[in-house]
Every structure is written in C-alpha cells, then in structure tokens.
C-alpha cells in the first residue's frame, strides 16, 4: 500500500537480552547449524495466534524483562510468557490478550516476577531477512536475527503486513499455565542411551530433586543434585546427534537438559529425553527451580503433543470484551469495556485498547 509507510518498531531499551526468535531453524542440523528458536514455544505460539500471525512468524524474546519499545505505527500487539508488569503509555495491560495500540505508543516491560522470558508479537511479524529459512537468532554462531546479535537501543526493526484476520481484544481459551513456579515435574521418555547407566543411576534420576543451576542458558539447563551413576564409570560415547530436551550426563554425573540453542551433536550419554510438551516450562525455569522427573512412554508423550496441537488453533480464540452496538448521532458504533484482573480494556469500533479508569463498575 503506497499510503502506508513501512511499519517498524523501535527498541528504546533492550533490557538484559532481547532476541528475535521464531520456531527455529530446521533442515541444517546435519551441517552443524543449531536449531535455536523460542525456548517457550507455547508462549510464542500463543502470541502469534493472538495477533493473527502465521505460526512461523518471528517475535521478540525478552529475558528477565526491562524492555522498552516504541510503535511508530498503529498496530495490534500481544505479550505472553513470564509474569511481569506491562504498560502501554503507562496504562497496565494483561498478558495473553491482543491490544490495538496507537502510533507513537510506548510499551514498557517490568522485571520478570515469575518465569524468565517474555514474548512480544506484533501483527505482521518481524520481517527481517531470513537466514537458512529462519529469523531465529543463534548468538554462539552469529546467525539470524539482526546481524546474529541481541538487539540494542536504537534498533529499528521492519514489520510485515498484518493478516486480514488481525483483531484485538482476543485471548486464547485454555491458555494453560506454562510458568514453572518453584517446582516442576518433568515428564521424560527414557533413552536413547539409558542402557549406559546403572540401576542406581536410573533410580537417582527418578527419586531425586534436582535444582536448576545459575550456569544455565538458552543452550541448556545444568542441574545440581545427586550424581547419576553410569554402568562403566564412563559417560563418554562416540559423538552423535542430540535433540531438544535431550538429558545428557557428563563426567561429573550431573544432568544437563539441552534446549533451543544446543549444538547439533554431543559426546555424552543421554539418559532420557523430555516430552516436547514440557519443554516450554523448562524454558521459563530460572536458577533455583526444583526439578523432578517421571517416566512416560513414547506413545504417551506423542498423545500429549497431539492434544497440545488442538489447543493452538484460531478457533480457540475468544473475545475478552462483550461489545454492544450503540446509536450516536444516528450512527451505529460498537463499544465495550472489560476488566481482566489488573487491567481494563475498552473496545471502540472493534479495536480493543488498554484504558485507565479512575472508577469502573463492571456491568452486571
């Protein structure tokens, strides 16, 4: 559209680390290229769904909050993931709801209160050039995102065209809580190299509580806790491929759960693999989070994944604001107001805005 200048967002303050991420870079692992992508894929999928984006659209992944961005163009946005205070021009907004923001609006994200990573989706998605089929940033190899790096103050990022389906005031029904709290039970499928470990080693894994160490990052979670004993005393295998959620045990016997930024291959025996549906919570697990493991079968893990895929569909989006039609000076307009916990929303002509009200009594 010629009357529509190119749409962008401006990074005013990136916080500790803000990265461009999509669902990951697939197809090049045999050439040593890490998949990367969002570590909380549930939060990414929810955010994209709320603003009418393709599931493969790229979002901002913000670690620990502290981000400030400006929207030079009027746009629909959604914020998901770690619990934190979010405001648009000082007005509180809710996580997991899509909003229409005015041109020039400024979003401020407070520090994360529960969870580590917040996702911000904008209608149309982040439209930087793809590298090997993805926009995900992999810092270790300097691939993807903006020049393979984290975003910095002053970055101006291009956005794509919003879909026709874009709407504000939506939330995802059954937006199951992915935030970890202080303790997580993680479902795992044993293997591929569980036979490298002794009976005692396997028992340690299932009967102990492990703690996420501060030596954890997008590449993996290092866990502190009881040593997992191998059969032979060796933990090394001839290097082979790893997957998202591989639990490898290096020579010190302390497990490491591999996440999005993992290398493609590794030389430690892998005792088990995390169920795909439990990976998002691990992506939100900060240092000190307690982790226990329980075994499920491959078939059970796949059933969970099939159930998950039913949740992330446009037909599960619902409007948060009940809108009514009014006649004003002979014209029909549609308005509505809703209260969603800490924030209040107003809908005018099918656009839902965050609003600040001194006193508001819900209808009823």
């Amino acid at each position: 559209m010629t009357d529509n200048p190119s749409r962008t967002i401006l990074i005013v303050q990136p916080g500790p680390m803000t990265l461009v991420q999509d669902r990951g870079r697939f197809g090049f692992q045999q050439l040593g290229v890490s998949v990367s992508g969002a570590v909380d894929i549930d939060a990414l999928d929810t955010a994209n769904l709320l603003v009418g984006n393709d599931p493969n659209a790229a979002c901002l992944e913000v670690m620990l909050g502290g981000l400030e961005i400006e929207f030079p163009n009027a746009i629909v946005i959604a914020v998901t993931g770690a619990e934190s205070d979010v405001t648009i021009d000082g007005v509180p907004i809710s996580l997991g709801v899509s909003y229409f923001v005015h041109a020039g609006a400024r979003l401020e994200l407070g520090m994360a209160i529960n969870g580590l990573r917040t996702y911000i989706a904008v209608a149309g998605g982040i439209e930087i050039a793809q590298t090997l089929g993805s926009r995900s940033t992999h810092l270790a190899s300097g691939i993807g995102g903006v020049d393979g790096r984290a975003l910095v103050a002053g970055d101006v990022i291009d956005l794509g065209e919003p879909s026709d389906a874009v709407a504000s005031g939506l939330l995802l029904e059954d937006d199951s809580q992915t935030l970890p709290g202080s303790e997580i039970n993680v479902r795992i499928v044993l293997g591929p190299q569980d036979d490298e470990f002794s009976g005692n080693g396997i028992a340690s894994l299932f009967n102990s509580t492990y703690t996420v160490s501060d030596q954890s990052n997008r590449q993996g979670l290092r866990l502190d806790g009881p040593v997992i004993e191998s059969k032979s005393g060796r933990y090394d295998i001839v290097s082979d491929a790893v997957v998202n959620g591989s639990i490898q045990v290096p020579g010190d016997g302390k497990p490491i759960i591999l996440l999005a930024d993992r290398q493609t291959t590794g030389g430690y025996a892998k005792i088990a693999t995390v169920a795909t549906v439990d990976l998002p919570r691990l992506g939100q697990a900060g240092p000190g989070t307690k982790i226990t493991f329980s075994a499920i079968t491959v078939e059970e893990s796949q059933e969970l994944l099939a159930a998950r895929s039913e949740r992330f569909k446009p037909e599960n989006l619902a409007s948060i604001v009940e809108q009514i039609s009014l006649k004003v000076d002979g014209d029909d307009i549609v308005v509505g107001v809703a209260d969603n916990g800490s924030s209040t929303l107003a809908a005018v002509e099918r656009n839902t805005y965050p609003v600040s009200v001194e006193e508001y009594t819900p209808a009823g």
Partner: protein
Amino acid sequence: MATNEASGTTYPRLVPAGDSAIVIELGSEIDPNVNDQIYSLVKTVEMAGLEAVRELVPTYRSLLVSYDPLVSRFVEMNERLAELVDRSKDRPDKEAEQARIVELPVVYGGDDGPDLDSLAEHTNLSVQEVIDIHSGIDYRVYMIGFAPGFPYLGGLDQRIAMPRLKTPRVSVPAGSVGIAESQTGVYPNASPGGWQLIGRTLAKLFDVSSKSPSLITPGSKVRFVSVKSHDR
C-alpha cells in the same frame, strides 16, 4: 548384524530420542565401514520419501531421524525405518569410493600456521615431511557438528599427532587447519580454539547466504593441497 562384546548390545538397533526422533545405531565405535553404512542408510531413507520425516542427522555410527509424530506415530515410524535399515544393507557397499572430494588449498606454516615448526620438532620430522604427510591423504568426513560446517575428519597419520595447546587461543582465524591429538580439522569460522595450527585455507567453508551453505558435506572427503601463497 554386529554385537558389541562389552555391552552385549546388538546392532543395528533403533531407539527413541523422545517423542519426535528415532536414533538408528549401526555400531558403537568409530569405524569407516560403519560410517559408510550410515551414509548408504541416509540415501535409502531419503529415497523412501517418508511423509513424516523432517530432518536426518548422520553421525559417526548413528543416524538421527526426526519426524512429525502427528503425521506418523512411533510404532509406525519404527517399523518403516527398520525395513529401510534392512533394505539399505542390500545396497552395493561402494559409497566410499564415490565420495565427493573437497580440495582445500592450504598455505602451511608462517602466520597461517604458527604451530607448524613446534609440531615438526615435537614429531621429530622436517617441516616439509609434516606437510607431505598431512596433505598426502584424503580425509573422511565422518560427520559435521559442534559448529556450522565444522567437519569431524578421520584418518590422520599418527606420525604427526600432537596434543592440544596448553593455553587455547582466544581467537583462531577462519580457515585455520589444525591438529589435536590424533584428529585434524579446519575451523569454518573464527572462534576460540586449542588446536595446533599448521596452516590456513581461504576457501569459504560456510556461507549462510547459500542454499548449500557448507562446502564440506557429511560423507564427503577432504583433501588438503599445499600451496605457496593464497594468490591464485
């Protein structure tokens, strides 16, 4: 069918790596014949064109098949892949001879290979002998991993093996050719590293803007060609 004496494991074996991948192990050790079988299996699986298959990651002695479980569940995939493993065994075992050879022009020594002199001293060989031995054979690319385009090469002559540097370098230039213990390799990108650097190539090993980004591919062979200077 092979059996590992120590563990009693029988190969080939298929094991799940979670809900979206199956690992096909054809052995437990580094063995050129097993690695050949891995690359014939890659061809067999690619040719079968299974709808659920998303990505293949061949390594020394195993093949990771990642798949979409919403298209095919584990039991079905496992069955199909077991059939393909059987079928792959019947392929003529001549893959190695057909392997693509990647020639890398290398300037040995000087600023390009700052550790060449000390390696010659360590191995009681002349500098020229080290160069002749290193560039005298074709190296099998067992797999690519660790970093984009980083080849795990096999076949280094033990006469020129040498331990890693005591203190790794903060940055090794892209294209550096090095030796660590009984391995040789080439760094596709600048990175920290502790390998003994004997030379350098200016060949672009990894190019993200290309559809086939890695010059060296799994299953190919690498030949280092000694050149006097980088001008060509």
